[in-house]
């Protein structure tokens, strides 16, 4: 049984349908990349999985249990954590306070404040700074670490290298490798296709609210991805 499965998952914003019958799965401990252009529905899909958008019961299931109707705060306690697009750190809280808020679900597991500081020593140095006063790359690390404090089994990452320098972007992806070594499954939304394929074992490519291509990241055909990404068939 897969860790995460979506069954004909659809989503609407009013009359606008953003997702059409999405079927996707993530196995335990696996890294899966979700690629696609702006407006393809990647963020909507992650929000539906995290519970920021509600669907019907078995449209989203975690280890065979239907969670599609559960609000986000319940899904966190079941092991689904989202690193939201744009980081969304709490601006009146320090780094450490942001991290502590991440353990509000009280889900047990290996990630504690000490463990996070051990893995990301740079966060220990800035722990008393206001979170939104950090550099973009450091803020992204805080956002990832904050989600880890909930001890997720599945970490959803939305555009975690967007707007970062190449160096910071590499650091963020290195952090993801640590997370994966820990046995946490990752579903990664990424604009940089090559980077996405390098970090993941499988990928899905989305366009206009549908999955148009999927396969193994190692054997992916870049030309084919580019075609499906833009929907241009020469």
């Amino acid at each position, binding site marked *: 049984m897969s860790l995460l499965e979506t069954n004909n998952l659809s989503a609407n914003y009013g009359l606008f349908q953003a997702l059409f019958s999405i079927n996707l799965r993530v196995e335990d401990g696996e890294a899966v990349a979700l690629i696609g252009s702006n407006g393809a529905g990647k963020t909507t899909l992650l929000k539906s999985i995290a519970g920021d958008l509600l669907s019907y019961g078995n449209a989203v299931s975690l280890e065979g249990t239907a969670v599609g109707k559960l609000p986000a*705060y319940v899904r966190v306690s079941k092991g689904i954590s989202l690193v939201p697009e744009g980081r*969304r750190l709490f601006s009146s809280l320090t780094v450490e*306070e942001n991290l502590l808020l991440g353990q*509000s679900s009280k889900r047990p597991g290996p990630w504690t404040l000490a463990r996070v500081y051990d893995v990301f020593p740079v966060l220990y140095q800035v722990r008393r700074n206001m979170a939104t006063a950090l550099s973009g790359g450091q803020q992204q690390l805080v956002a990832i670490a904050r989600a880890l404090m909930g001890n997720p089994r599945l970490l959803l990452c939305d555009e975690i290298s967007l707007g970062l320098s190449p160096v910071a972007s590499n650091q963020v992806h290195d952090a993801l490798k640590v997370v994966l070594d820990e046995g946490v499954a990752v579903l990664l939304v990424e604009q940089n296709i090559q980077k996405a394929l390098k970090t993941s074992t499988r990928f899905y490519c989305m366009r206009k609210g549908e999955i148009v291509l999927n396969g193994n990241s190692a054997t992916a055909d870049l030309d084919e991805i580019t075609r499906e990404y833009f929907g241009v068939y020469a």
Partner: protein
Amino acid sequence: MSAILESLLNGIFLGALYAMIGLGLSIGFGVMNIVNLAHGDFMILAAMMSYGISAWLKIDAITTVIFVLPLMAVLGYLLQRFVMSRTLGSGPLPPLLVTFGMSIVLQNTMQELFTADTRVLPSSDALSGGSLGVGGVSIGLLPLLTTVVTLAVFASLELMLRRTSAGRILRATSDDRSTVRLMGLNDGRVFAYASALVFALVGLAAVFYGIRSPFTPASGPERLLFAFEAVVMGGLGSMWGTLLGGIMLGLAQMLGEYIHTGYGPFTGHVAFFVALLVLPNGLFGRSIK
């Protein structure tokens, strides 16, 4: 000389009372983005509660806080959980309309139940009429106690917000409610607890205000107005701004009364008007979003 000094001191004491009433408004707006138009009427309701309890148990009104505070907190929790929660999520208008409606319903229900009579909360003469003479200036015991309690409440709330996990959650919710959900917290319950806190503060302010000045079931809106002026002068959502705003308003009112009895509310409104012109965002802007 001592007369004007007394006026200034009384202004500060009165301002502390306005700040205590305004604090609930400030938290409600800062954390939940709700402006409760029935804030003043709930304060009158709490004062009625205090009146009833003190008559029933034959105790000093000041002692009734031990009953009024928890009762109001429970009322605040239930009201947020089951009524106000339904008004959120579709813009600022629904909560305004619902609290406006509650204000009218409360005023009329209280008038029906308790008549339109003017009441004062009964308290011992030593407290309500007593005063200390310091160097020719007489300081009322009740206003002094009110001010000390107000300062203690502000300080302990500051500690709670900065040092405890509950305070951390309140600040985070004030920053970004939907991200709080992603941390595994039920934001509806966070709001309900915040509302319980607000209502407990309303209960506390009600007892002090009720001993100080007479009230009727229709006094709520006027008191809301003063509290509002304190909050806006201090800066929406800023806790310490509310304290300073309240003191500015109290000073302005007392200086007005020093010039001519009956000028008090007028000079208070003038000060508010001038403050709005000079500092439209209030003294401390929006430090809590």
